[in-house]
């Protein structure tokens, strides 16, 4: 896999607002995954989007993938305080199942 570059590094929003997080990568991919990590906990897999998909939804999450721009975005709608966490994107190149994590995005949702 290759490391995704997440942007912004930190994001603070009010409860109920939408949060958009971006990820860019360098070489061609097989899939892209997003993970969430709450403070003091392990990572939780949120969603996987394959290279031949453009958009995917899961509950309040919407992920898009633009392979021409080598970028992905994660949208969380109607954010809640419980969404406060670090979010990581990981790009899989299809060679193996190894994941290479970047520093992630710290999302703070204010009540």
């Amino acid at each position, binding site marked *: 896999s290759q490391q995704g570059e997440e942007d912004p590094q930190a994001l603070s929003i009010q409860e109920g607002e939408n949060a958009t997080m971006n990820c860019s990568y360098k070489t061609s991919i*097989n*899939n892209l995954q997003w993970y969430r990590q709450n403070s003091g*906990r*392990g990572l939780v897999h949120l969603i*996987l989007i394959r290279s031949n998909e453009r958009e995917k939804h899961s509950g309040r999450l919407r992920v898009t993938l633009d392979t021409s721009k080598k970028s992905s975005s994660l949208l969380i709608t109607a954010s809640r305080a419980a969404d406060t966490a670090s979010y990581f994107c990981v790009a899989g190149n299809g060679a*193996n*199942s190894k*994941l290479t*994590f970047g*520093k992630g995005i710290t999302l703070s949702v204010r009540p």
Partner: protein
Amino acid sequence: EAGVAQSPRYKIIEKRQSVAFWCNPISGHATLYWYQQILGQGPKLLIQFQNNGVVDDSQLPKDRFSAERLKGVDSTLKIQPAKLEDSAVYLCASSLGGLNQPQHFGDGTRLSIL
């Protein structure tokens, strides 16, 4: 389904001592991973097992770290002797294996070296 279990949750030792972490993956998951996560950074893969064989240990400091996965189920990660820079959270993850399978993480062991 039960998640990935890790113990202990916290460990405090002095430098040059040894320490061991234990992981029980999700039943049926062939692939097991150990990660090191230093504060403020993303997890870094230390070692990956497929059943009881090592697939990737390129980032494991083999002079002090060792890991095993006997019988292809539980795994232990050991550090001997510990250094100050080993202070981190050690995460275990498991997956069914394959390219598009998500990894499932335990809550980790937070190691503090005095």
